[in-house]
C-alpha cells in the first residue's frame, strides 16, 4: 500500500477495534461510509486517526470540541444566521473529527477540479464572447439567455490574460460508486476559504499531535498562491496592483469571512460607497483623499455591483464600475457576469463541452440532471417529480430546491405547473444518497451525510487546488445532504500526504513595492468613522458606568442613612446622572424618587437595551461600530470585547439581584473597558486609524466632564454639601488620590478645578483631553492647504487657549444668584467647540457625500398621429 502516513506507524492494519464509546451506535447504514467499509472494517486511511481518538476517549474529544468553540467564539468566528450584526450570530461549530481523504483519492479529485475550472473558464469566455457553444448546439440558447446570471451589459469584454475565472469552488460528495461527485459550482465569489483556514488553525491547536509529523497536507500553500495570483494580475499599473476586498457589509451572512480574508491578505475591506469612479478609474475614499484601486476582490453578487448598468436599486454597488472594468482600468475577480456559470442546467451539457474543448471526458461526475427546456427530459421530470429534486437554474436569494420525495401530491402538482409555465428555468436531478462520515455527536461517534467544498484559484495561467477544504456535515441523521449554508457541523479536511511535507510559514515575503503600499495604510473614510465612534462609545460606556457606580455606592452608605445632607447629595448625583446621560425623565422629576423607584430606574439603566443610553444599548452601539471595522482588531482585542458582551448578557439575564451587587458588575465592566482601550494603546500603530479612535475618545471624555461639572459645580451650595459633591466628583473621575496628594484634606472648588479642569498632566482632566485632541488632529492626513491649521484644529485651539487663560480665583467667585456663572460660560464655550469639532470631522473626513439616486427619465408624450 502506498500510504506511508502516520496511520501505519501506529496501527495494526487488520484488527482495529473500536472502543465502546465509538462502536456503540455507529452503524453506517446503507450509504457508503467514509470510515467504515462494507465488511465492517475501518478503511486504511482512517485507522491511525480512529485509533488515536479511541485512546483519547470521549471526554477528551468533548473537551477538544469545547476548546474549539471557545477559540472560535473568542476569535469572533461567526456566521450571521439572519445577517444581524449583533442579534443572530451563530458561533462556528467544529467537529473534532476531520474528513480524511487518502492521497490516491485526492490525486483524482484534484485532477478533476482543475479540469472543471479550465472548462468553466472556457465556457465563461465563450458565453461573453462568440457564443460558439450555443451556435454549435453544445448549449441550448434558452439555458443561457434565460439565466439571470447572464448579464448582457458584460457582453464582449474580456480579461486581458484570458483567465476569466480567478476563484472557483465546487461542492463535492461521494456518490454510491465511491467516486466524488459534483454537487454545485461557485463562480461568483466562492465563500468558505476563510472558514477553512480558521478550521485548520483551530485543529492544530486542539489536536497538535496529528500535525507534527507533516503527514497532513498544509493549506498554507494555497494562500500563498492566492495572494501571488492576485498580486500578479495584469493590471494597467506596472507595479503591484492596489487591491481591495468589496463586501456587502456587516449584514451579509459572510461578513466575518470577508473581514477575515481582508485582514489575512492585508487588503482594505471596503463597501460600495467607499469606492468612487472618476474618469473611468476606481478610487478608494480615504482620509488622504481618493486613492487609486486596480483590483477588486468582490464578495458581492455581480448583479449588485453597478447601479448604473446592473440592478438599479442596488445601494451596495459602485456607479460606473462596469465602465471602469470595460476600459480595463480595474480588474474585478471574479469578473462581473461570472454568475452565469452557477447554473445546474449546465450539468447535462458539460460532458459534450468537455469533449469539444478538451478532447476528453469529464473527470468528476454529477448526479443525473435533466434540463426541462428539452421536451423529452421535461416529460421525464414531470412524470418522476415525486422521486427527484427540482432546482431553478438561477439561484435567486432565498430560493430552495424542491425534494419530490418529501412533497405532497398537491405540492408536486404545483411544481409541475411551474415547470410547464417556464420549463427552461428548471432542472430535475436524481436524488442520490451520498456518503456518510463519522461525526462526534453528544459524546458518541455517529455517521452523518457530509459534503466538502473545495477551492481553486489561478496563478500564472494555471489553476491550483487547496489541499484541504471546508467539510460540512448534516446535523441530523435523516438529512441526506448538508445545506449549502454554513448552518451545520463544520469539519477540517485532511488530505493525507504520501511523504512528509515541510513546514512553510504562512508569511509571505513582500516586495518593496508592496511594503510601500502597506505603509501608506489606506484608511477608508468609513473605517475612520467607525473607529472614531468606537472611541466615543467606549468612553461613553465607561463614563456611564462610573457615574452609575458612584450613585449606587452613595446610596449604599447605610451609616449616612439618617444624614439629610447626604440624602441631598444622593439626589443631586442622581439628577446629574440623568442630565449627563440624557436618559430622561430619569431622576429629573418634581418630587425625588422613592428608593424603590430609584432602584427600578437603575435596573433599567443596567439592563434595558432598548433604552437609548442604557449600558446594554451603549454596548450594542460599541460592538456595532467595532464590528464594522472587524478587520482592524487583534484577536486579543476581540476577545476582550466578546468577554464584555457575554458578561453583560449574564448581568441582564439576572435583573432581580440587589442593586448594590451591581457595583461589582460595574467594576468588572470598567476594568474590561480599560483593557480594551489599553490594548489599543499598546498595540495599534499611531496611524490615522488610531488617531480617529483616540480623537473620539478624547472628545467624548471632554464632553462628559463638562456636563458633569455643569450639573454639579455651577450652582452654589452649602459648604458641607459642596465638600461632599467635590469629593464624589473627584472619585468618579479617578482623581481623588491625586487631589489628596497635592492638597491633603484641603478640598475646595478651586483645588478641584485645578485637578479636573486645567491640569494638562492628569489624564482625567479636561485640559489633558484638549491637548491630546490637538495632537491627534495635527497628525491627521489632510490636503495641504495654505493655512497652517485645519478648521477642527482651530476649534480645539480656541478651546485650549480659553482654558489656559483662565484665572481660577475669578471663576470660582460666585455671583449673587446664578452660582458660578463664569465657570458655566467657560464650560459652555469649550463644549460648543468640542461639538463643532465632531461635526467638522464628520463633514471633512467621514461624509460619503450623498448617496446615489437614479435619474429616471419621466415618460415622454408621444403625438398620436
Amino acid at each position, binding site marked *: 500500500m502506498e500510504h506511508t502516513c502516520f496511520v501505519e506507524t501506529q496501527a495494526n492494519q487488520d484488527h482495529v477495534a473500536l472502543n465502546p464509546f465509538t462502536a456503540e451506535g455507529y452503524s453506517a447504514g446503507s450509504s457508503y461510509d467514509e470510515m467504515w467499509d462494507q465488511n465492517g472494517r475501518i478503511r486504511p486511511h482512517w485507522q491511525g486517526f480512529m485509533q488515536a481518538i479511541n485512546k483519547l476517549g470521549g471526554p477528551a474529544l468533548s473537551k477538544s470540541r469545547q476548546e474549539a468553540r471557545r477559540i472560535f467564539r473568542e476569535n469572533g468566528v461567526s456566521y450571521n444566521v439572519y445577517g444581524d450584526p449583533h442579534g443572530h450570530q451563530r458561533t462556528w461549530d467544529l467537529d473534532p473529527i476531520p474528513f480524511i481523504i487518502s492521497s490516491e483519492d485526492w490525486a483524482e479529485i484534484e485532477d478533476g477540479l482543475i479540469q472543471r475550472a479550465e472548462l468553466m473558464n472556457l465556457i465563461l469566455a465563450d458565453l461573453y464572447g462568440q*457564443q460558439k457553444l*450555443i*451556435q*454549435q*448546439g453544445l448549449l441550448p*440558447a*434558452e439555458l443561457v*439567455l*434565460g439565466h439571470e446570471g447572464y448579464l*448582457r*451589459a458584460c*457582453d*464582449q469584454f474580456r480579461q486581458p490574460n484570458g483567465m476569466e475565472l480567478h476563484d472557483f469552488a465546487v461542492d463535492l460528495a461521494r456518490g454510491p460508486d465511491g467516486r466524488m461527485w459534483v454537487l454545485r459550482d461557485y463562480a461568483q465569489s466562492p465563500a468558505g476559504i476563510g472558514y477553512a483556514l480558521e478550521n485548520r488553525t483551530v485543529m492544530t491547536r486542539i489536536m497538535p499531535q496529528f500535525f507534527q509529523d507533516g503527514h497532513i497536507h498544509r493549506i498554507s500553500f494555497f494562500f500563498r498562491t492566492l495572494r501571488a495570483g492576485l498580486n500578479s494580475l495584469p493590471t494597467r499599473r506596472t507595479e503591484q496592483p492596489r487591491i481591495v476586498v468589496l463586501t456587502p457589509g456587516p449584514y451579509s451572512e459572510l461578513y466575518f469571512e470577508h473581514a477575515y480574508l481582508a485582514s489575512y491578505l492585508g487588503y482594505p475591506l471596503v463597501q460600495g460607497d467607499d469606492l*468612487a*469612479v*472618476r*474618469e*473611468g478609474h476606481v478610487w478608494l475614499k480615504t482620509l488622504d483623499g481618493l486613492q487609486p484601486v486596480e483590483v477588486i476582490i468582490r464578495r458581492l453578487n455581480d448583479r449588485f455591483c453597478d*447601479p*448604473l*448598468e446592473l440592478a438599479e436599486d442596488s445601494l451596495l454597488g459602485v*456607479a*460606473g464600475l462596469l*465602465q471602469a472594468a*470595460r*476600459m480595463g482600468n480595474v480588474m474585478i475577480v471574479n469578473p462581473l457576469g461570472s454568475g452565469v456559470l452557477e447554473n445546474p442546467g449546465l450539468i447535462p451539457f458539460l460532458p459534450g463541452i468537455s469533449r469539444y474543448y478538451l478532447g476528453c471526458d469529464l473527470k468528476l461526475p454529477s448526479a443525473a440532471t435533466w434540463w426541462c427546456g428539452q421536451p423529452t427530459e421535461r416529460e421525464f421530470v414531470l412524470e418522476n417529480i415525486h422521486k427527484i429534486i427540482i432546482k431553478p437554474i438561477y439561484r435567486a436569494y432565498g430560493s430552495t430546491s424542491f425534494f419530490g420525495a418529501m412533497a405532497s401530491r398537491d405540492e408536486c402538482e404545483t411544481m409541475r405547473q411551474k415547470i410547464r*409555465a*417556464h420549463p*427552461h428555468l428548471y432542472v430535475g436531478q436524481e436524488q442520490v444518497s451520498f456518503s456518510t462520515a463519522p461525526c462526534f455527536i453528544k459524546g458518541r461517534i455517529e455517521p452523518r451525510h457530509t459534503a466538502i467544498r473545495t477551492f481553486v484559484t489561478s496563478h500564472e495561467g494555471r489553476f491550483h487546488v487547496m489541499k484541504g477544504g471546508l467539510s460540512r456535515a448534516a446535523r441530523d441523521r435523516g438529512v441526506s445532504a448538508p445545506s449549502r449554508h454554513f448552518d451545520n457541523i463544520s469539519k477540517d479536511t485532511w488530505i493525507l500526504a504520501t511523504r512528509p511535507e515541510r513546514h512553510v510559514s504562512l508569511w509571505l515575503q513582500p516586495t518593496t513595492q508592496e511594503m510601500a503600499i502597506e505603509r501608506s495604510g489606506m484608511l477608508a473614510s468609513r473605517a475612520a468613522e467607525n473607529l472614531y465612534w468606537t472611541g466615543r462609545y467606549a468612553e461613553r460606556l465607561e463614563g456611564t458606568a462610573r457615574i452609575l457606580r458612584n450613585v449606587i455606592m452613595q446610596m449604599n452608605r447605610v451609616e449616612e442613612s439618617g444624614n439629610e445632607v447626604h440624602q441631598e447629595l444622593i439626589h443631586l448625583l442622581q439628577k446629574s446622572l440623568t442630565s449627563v446621560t440624557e436618559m430622561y425623565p430619569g431622576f429629573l422629576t418634581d418630587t425625588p424618587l422613592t428608593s424603590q423607584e430609584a432602584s427600578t430606574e437603575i435596573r433599567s439603566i443596567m439592563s434595558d437595551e432598548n433604552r437609548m443610553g442604557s449600558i446594554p444599548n451603549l454596548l450594542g452601539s460599541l460592538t456595532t461600530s467595532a464590528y464594522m471595522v472587524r478587520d482592524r482588531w487583534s484577536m486579543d482585542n476581540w476577545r476582550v470585547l466578546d468577554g464584555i458582551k457575554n458578561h453583560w448578557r449574564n448581568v441582564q439575564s439576572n435583573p432581580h439581584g440587589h442593586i448594590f451587587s451591581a457595583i461589582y458588575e460595574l467594576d468588572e465592566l470598567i476594568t474590561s473597558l480599560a483593557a480594551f482601550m489599553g490594548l489599543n494603546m499598546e498595540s495599534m500603530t499611531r496611524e490615522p486609524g488610531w488617531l480617529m479612535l483616540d480623537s473620539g475618545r478624547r472628545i467624548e471624555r471632554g464632553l462628559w466632564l463638562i456636563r458633569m461639572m455643569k450639573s454639579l459645580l455651577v450652582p452654589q451650595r452649602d459648604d458641607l454639601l459642596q465638600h461632599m459633591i467635590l469629593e464624589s466628583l473627584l472619585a468618579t473621575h479617578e482623581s481623588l488620590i491625586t487631589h489628596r496628594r497635592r492638597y491633603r484634606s484641603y478640598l475646595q472648588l478651586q483645588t478641584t478645578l485645578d485637578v479636573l479642569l486645567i491640569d494638562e498632566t492628569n489624564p482625567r482632566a479636561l485640559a489633558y483631553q484638549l491637548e491630546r485632541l490637538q495632537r491627534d488632529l495635527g497628525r491627521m492626513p489632510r490636503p495641504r492647504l495654505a493655512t497652517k491649521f485645519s478648521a477642527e484644529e482651530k476649534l480645539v485651539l480656541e478651546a485650549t487657549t480659553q482654558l489656559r487663560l483662565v484665572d481660577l480665583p475669578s471663576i470660582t467667585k460666585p455671583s449673587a444668584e446664578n452660582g458660578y456663572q463664569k465657570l458655566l460660560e467657560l464650560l459652555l464655550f469649550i463644549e460648543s467647540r468640542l461639538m463643532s469639532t465632531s461635526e467638522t470631522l464628520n463633514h471633512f473626513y467621514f461624509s460619503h*457625500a*450623498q*448617496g*446615489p*439616486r*437614479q*435619474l*429616471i*427619465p*419621466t*415618460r*415622454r*408624450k*408621444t*403625438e*398620436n*398621429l
Partner: protein
Amino acid sequence: MNYRVIHRTEYEYSDSANVCHNLAHLSPRQDAGQRCNSHFLSVVPQPSLLDERIDHFGNRTFYFSIEKPHRTMVVTATSLIDTQARNNTAHSASSWKTFGAELDGRPPRDQLIAKEFSLESPLIPRLEQLRHYAEPSFANHDGILAAAMDIMRRIFNEYTYDPAFTTLATPLRDVLEHKRGVCQDFAHLAIGCLRSFGIPARYISGYLETQPPPGQAKLVGADASHAWLSVYTPDAGWIELDPTNNQRPDNRYIVIGWGRDYSDLPPLKGVIFGGGTHNMKVSVDVEPLNR
C-alpha cells in the same frame, strides 16, 4: 428621406449635484434601413469622460460622467439621417404553427437572435393574460405576420392612448387591465402577445416625423421619441409594426436601436450624487431636409 433630428434633454436640480454617471441611447444605428450621416452628442457641462461603444444588441451607447458640481445638465443629440425607402409591404408566409421547425432551418446566428427575443424580459414578463389576449388573433390567422398585424389592429382599436395614465413604472399587467397607455406600453403589449406564442419580437426605440395640422406651421419641439416593435418571421426576417398608429413603419420612421424592451435602451439614464429634486424637460425635433 433626409432628416435632422435634435433630441434635447435638460435636467435642472434643486441642489448642487456633485457627480453623475450616465448612459445614453440617443444615436441612431447604422443598419436598419437607414444611414446616419452625422451624429453629435453634446453634454453641458463638459463631461470628464465620454466613451462610445456598441452594446450587446448592436446599439450605439454612450457613457459619460460629470464630476464637478453642477445645477443643470443638458444633453443634446443631433443626427443627420437618411432613411431609405422601406419595404413595408413585404409578405411572409411563415406559419406560427410550424415556427419551431422553420426556425431550425435558419443559420445558428439567426436562431440565437430569435431566441433572445422570444424569452421573458425585465419589463415583459410571461403573463397568462397576454396569452389570453393574443389567443383570438392566433386562432384566426395561421401566418405569423397576419396574426401580428391582427394584434396590432386590435390594440389600436381597443386601447386608449392616454399619456396621463402611465408612468415608467406602470407594469404591463395594469396596462392590460385598464386598456390604456402610450407607445411604449403598446409596443410592450404586442411583443408580450407574440412571445406568449413563442414568436420572437423586439422593442424599437426611435422617432417619427409628425405633420402639423393643415395650414399651420410646425412647432419646434413638438415631435417626440417613439416606440414600436419588430416581429421575426423565418421566411422574411424582421418585420416592423407600429401598434400606436396601426401601420407598418415606412421611411418616416427613424430607428435609434432595439432591445428586448424599453429597459435595454432608455434614451438617457443615470445615477446622480446630490442634486436634491430634479426637473426634466425633453424636446425633440424631426426636421425633414431638402424635401
